């Protein structure tokens, strides 16, 4: 395994993020691993495809890296590179219909009850997933899950469930189509391939989401008693609600996905010893889903004050910028509309957005809006900028016009750069800014514009606010604070229990 003796070993699990896709969570993972050189990490990354581009080079203290592609492989054991092919072949030969019926179906039945059922029993779900994991140490996943008896069993269960009020679709009187049976079982086959992957033995497991990537953590806890720390960046369940509403899905499939995700989210919440959301705003959801208050400890994201430094020579640029992806959730259109209002009062100002266009259609809509408002010369899109610490100094005010956020890095980075921030009151933004910036309602360009105009006209107030922002960011949102909080959390879990000192609050 490569772990050195006496060093703390941690399994960090990610989903759709580190070390592949860029973004806030990946940045967080990279900082956590890279700065905690005294810890040996294993990383399990659940990704959509085996050909995902790895954007982050793993630090030296990552001793073990496993990627689990959920799609894009021809066999579910294709990613198990460290297992000799002969072992995989033997498992395939050993797996037959009798074994599947006698040993797997009883486990599968209970797992289906949890997925399809309206009420969830997370503790039993965890135990059954562990049994599933143990079964796949001996037998083949592909042969088992693709067996005709499994499909028949699933179909029969669905049919019987039509009149069973305990299942999600019976309550809503949705009768599934044949294609939905194939698709839903197909999703179960894909997602639970996670149980087909060997979990390294470590001191502590740490999941970056309350999703499918938390399954190895739950299994490790049940099998070995390994303490489990869960960090929630966004709220997984909330994100799935939004995703299923945007996706082109039938009602059965939408509700199936939500029922499945709810089972997994509750599983993570039930088994985690410590849950560390990145902002207090997210704790509202966690508590609604039954997480006890004493299990929750907010650990804010941290940025490096040596990287995000104030400008040496502060000169007015007469410019307002946003550092954000061009994405509907970032609501760049709100910023564009606000820019039009601002220019009527302060015609000398300019505006810019530093960020890649993750949604091409939305980007084109932004360009069209900009041009239709006559802002072509005044409002620029600079694209993705590799050094955001320099981008913050391009403007006098940093704007975040989003409709939905967790605890945005761009706000605390801007504060650390001693910039005045105007941001919408979503997610953990108010927690971050407090009185060190201006918080406005979302989807309201007039309010956004008024806040920017006030700051541009009141230079002294702007300077005071930006100094307070830098002071607050250095005190609370520094990378050192962030790392120390996690060190404390790891220490308390390593010692076999959560005894975190809740008195040590900085607010």
């Amino acid at each position, binding site marked *: 395994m490569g772990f050195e003796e006496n060093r703390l070993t941690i399994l960090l699990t990610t989903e759709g993020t580190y070390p592949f896709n860029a973004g806030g969570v990946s940045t967080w993972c990279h900082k956590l691993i890279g700065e905690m050189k005294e810890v040996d990490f294993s990383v399990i990354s659940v990704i959509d495809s085996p050909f995902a*581009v790895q954007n982050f080079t793993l630090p030296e203290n990552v001793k073990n890296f496993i*990627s689990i592609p959920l799609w894009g492989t021809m066999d579910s054991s294709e990613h198990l*590179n460290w297992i000799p092919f002969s072992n995989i072949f033997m498992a395939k030969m050993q797996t037959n219909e009798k074994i599947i019926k006698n040993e797997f179906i009883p486990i599968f039945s209970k797992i289906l009850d949890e997925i399809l059922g309206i009420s969830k029993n997370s503790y039993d779900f965890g135990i059954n997933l562990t049994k599933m994991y143990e079964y796949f140490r001996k037998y083949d996943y592909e042969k088992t899950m693709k067996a005709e008896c499994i499909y028949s069993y699933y179909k029969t269960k669905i049919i019987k469930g039509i009149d069973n009020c305990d299942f999600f679709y019976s309550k809503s009187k949705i009768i599934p189509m044949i294609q939905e049976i194939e698709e839903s079982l197909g999703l179960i086959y894909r997602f639970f391939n996670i149980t087909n992957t060997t979990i390294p033995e470590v001191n502590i497991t740490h999941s970056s989401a309350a999703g499918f990537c938390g399954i190895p953590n739950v299994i490790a806890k049940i099998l070995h008693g390994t303490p489990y720390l869960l960090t929630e960046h966004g709220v997984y369940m909330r994100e799935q*609600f939004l995703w299923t*509403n945007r996706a082109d899905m039938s009602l059965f499939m939408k509700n199936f996905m939500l029922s499945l995700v709810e089972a997994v989210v509750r599983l993570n919440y039930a088994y985690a010893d410590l849950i560390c959301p990145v902002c207090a705003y997210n704790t*509202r959801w966690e508590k609604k889903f039954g997480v006890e208050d004493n299990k929750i400890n907010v650990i804010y994201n941290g940025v490096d004050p040596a990287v995000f430094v104030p400008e040496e020579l502060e000169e007015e640029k007469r410019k307002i910028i946003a550092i954000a992806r061009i994405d509907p959730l970032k609501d760049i259109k709100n910023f564009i509309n606000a820019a039009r209002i601002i220019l009527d009062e302060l015609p000398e100002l300019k505006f810019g957005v530093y960020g890649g266009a993750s949604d091409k259609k939305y980007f084109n809509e932004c360009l069209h809006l900009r041009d239709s408002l006559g802002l072509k010369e005044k409002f620029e899109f600079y694209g993705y900028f590799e050094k955001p610490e320099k981008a913050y100094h391009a403007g006098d005010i940093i704007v975040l016009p989003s409709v939905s956020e967790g605890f945005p890095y761009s706000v605390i980075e801007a504060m650390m750069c001693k910039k005045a921030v105007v941001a919408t009151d979503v997610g953990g933004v108010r927690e971050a800014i407090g009185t060190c910036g201006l918080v406005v*309602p979302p989807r309201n360009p007039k309010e956004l514009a008024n806040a920017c105009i006030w700051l541009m006209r009141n230079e002294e107030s702007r300077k005071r606010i930006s100094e307070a922002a830098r002071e607050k960011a250095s005190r609370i949102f520094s990378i050192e604070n962030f790392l120390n909080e996690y060190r404390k959390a790891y220490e308390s879990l390593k010692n076999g229990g959560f005894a975190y000192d809740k008195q040590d609050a900085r607010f």
Partner: protein
Amino acid sequence: MINKTPDFELLLKEINGLVKAPRDYFELAAILESLGYSDQRIKADFGYEDIFSFSQEIFQQIQDTQSANCLNEKIVEKTKISELFLGTLRGVFSVLPMIISMFSVFLMNFSLWSFVDKNDSGVEKATAIALATILSMVATGGFSQSFLRKAYGLYEQKFSKKLWKLYIFYFKEGLFAAVYIAALISAFVLFSDIYRIKNLIIFDVYFLLLTAVWLCMPILNIYKAEGIFVLNLGLSIYLVYFLKYYLCIDIIIAQIVAMITFVIVHFVFIKINLALISYKNENKYLSANYNPRLLFDAYITAPYFVYGILYYALIFMDRLIAWSSNIKYILEPVLRMKGEYDLGMNWGIFVIIIPAIFIEVFVRVYINKVFISSKSFSVEREDNFIKTNLKNFTALIRMFLVICIIGAIVSIGVINYTVFKWGIELNPYYSDISRNVFYVSVIGYIFIIGGLLSNIYLLYLSQGKTLVRILMISIGINFTVGFILSRIFEEYFACVGFLAGAAVFFVLSTYYTYKVIKKLDYYLYFNK
């Protein structure tokens, strides 16, 4: 109690537009937060403690305002006319190489037929070339099928660079395999001294070059660029014509030059294509752990590899049986091409041209019907789903057989009024034997193309092992019947073995397809 202000009505309308049949109030809470509502704003605007309590109140209202009709949607889709047209066009392109080849070979005398003497030396040369042609198809069949199996997934996920790398790998492996086979055969021939060295060299060169030519096709199938193959083939044939008639170069040399040129042009096309493809994010392919193992890939694609080899073995088994028997030497181990026999069998290939044009359309139509029916029948009406699909398949097979019969009538007519009419003037090997073999082969090829339609459905549903079973039985019948009859009577009775094998191929392919359709929903899941 909600105060139904105009703001509230607007909000309700907005939510109704965003969410259909919300599962619970949590879903509404998530939607409200995505619209920018916070606990403070909800309190200020509507007087509720927080988003969750507000969502609980409006949940029932939202449910009541949404009609129950949206709960079970019916999908009505039809295969687009444009898809049918494009499918037919692709079908035309896929048979054009065959048409061009046959035109040049049979009608322009552009083949070994015209330039090979009927003496022993000439027959040996023709045997070498014909054997090289057959073996090259058998050898590449497996590599093509394995490549296609892996490549479609990469193509659909738009991993172009990975796809091309995979293709180069399969091309190289296919060529290496051909080199090994050529070496083995050469060693046997050299030690046994049954053929002239000159003809052995011709065999090796043709075998390797034709292997390279056939290996050019699969990547073009993936990118639906069969037209490139057709164009390249046409240019190569013109090159042979030019070298032979204008520069008076020996036909064998001219063909070798043309084949080399074909492969070079193909790779120039690949290079240009690679340069045109944009490698967004693919240049940094750095997946630390993931690297598909060769052994694993081989295991997964093995049934399809074997299928590719066996399919061509079925098509050409009768030739080897006919060539290996001789009325003078019943147990003669040496292969001697029987020109009259081969002529008849080759003419028979004309019959598959018309059905081959439409095979893709039939496959596409049936698969679309399967998808539509799987979305239209509820799980409680599974029996109706199966019955509908069985009925659709039966109708499709019948229609396809009608097209095959039309194809047979057309090709018999064309051959009768051209090739048979010109007879020995067109080809020195023409005889009554050729004609009789032709009529038998026409029926055999109808069975082959009919069975191929079912094979494509089985391939689509990942039934590789079933396909191997079908082919092994068919080849067994082909060999047994052909061998016995060709030894008891004349070598030309090998075509009866071909007919028997083809008939079994058709029957078994259709039978297994029906078997699969009876559990179609399971096999659709199996294919996920």
